[in-house]
């Protein structure tokens, strides 16, 4: 068992445990902190796959900006106490059943796809090498082939900014 496998299984267990804690925690602030742990674990996965630019962007955008926004809203609304009204126990149970059915059915599809013509079991993720995840190659591609979506996304940001201000202002 190489170091790569140890890191992979550690990050996988960390991501799954923290994701469970996000939906189990009663206090919203704890949920936000566990979600930050999930994002760190996913960034670790990106680094294992040598997608370094996405790993850093994931940390900066998600763990840095979005989660701070969530924390600010929770603190501003003074929700950091356990006053969430609970759903009825049957509704919770049926939600868990629905999610479990989705998990089981899709994982059965994946399991059956191993030996079909798709040959999923022979496809491997290239770990730790390859330079398509480096910022030089991604930047060249982004500013040549993908320059129009890039500019459109700036318009999207502008409209989101205006929308957030319009919705959030007191009237």
């Amino acid at each position: 068992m190489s170091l790569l496998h140890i890191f992979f299984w550690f990050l996988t267990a960390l991501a799954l445990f923290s994701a469970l804690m996000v939906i189990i925690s009663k206090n919203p602030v704890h949920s936000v902190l566990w979600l930050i742990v999930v994002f760190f674990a996913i960034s670790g996965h990106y680094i294992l796959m040598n997608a370094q630019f996405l790993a850093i962007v994931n940390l900066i955008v998600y763990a840095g900006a979005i989660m701070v926004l969530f924390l600010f809203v929770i603190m501003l609304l003074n929700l950091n106490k356990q006053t969430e009204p609970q759903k009825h126990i049957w509704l919770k149970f049926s939600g868990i059943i629905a999610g479990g059915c989705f998990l089981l059915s899709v994982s059965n599809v994946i399991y059956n796809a191993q030996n079909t013509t798709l040959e999923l079991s022979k496809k491997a993720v290239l770990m730790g090498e390859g330079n398509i995840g480096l910022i030089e190659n991604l930047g060249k591609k982004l500013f040549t082939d993908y320059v129009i979506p890039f500019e459109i996304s700036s318009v999207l940001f502008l409209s989101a900014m205006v929308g957030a201000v319009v919705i959030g202002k007191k009237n």
Partner: protein
Amino acid sequence: MPVQYYIYLALALFSIGIIGVLTRRNAIIVFMCVELMLNAVNLLLVAFSKVHYGAAYLTNKTTDAGIDGQLFVFFIMVVAAAEVSVGLAIIVMLFRNTRSVDINFLNRLKN
């Protein structure tokens, strides 16, 4: 690393997100579970991008096959950032009108 491991991991994270959306009533936690589902999809896109690149790398060492998947992840992150800013503004407005972030109060939108 076989690609099924990444598929199962992303599937498990996505299912946890679904269960969170279906079982919680706090709008902010529902929103966070949506972010979790987005991140599961991002992880899967990067894994598939590396599968595609690894297959092309065997014949051509300077190929950039699979780089599109990583750019899609970049654009998903851009859209997610915009989505969060508008969504949190809506949640703040909901709290201002109902003094609660319970999603069951959202049916008051019809009035």
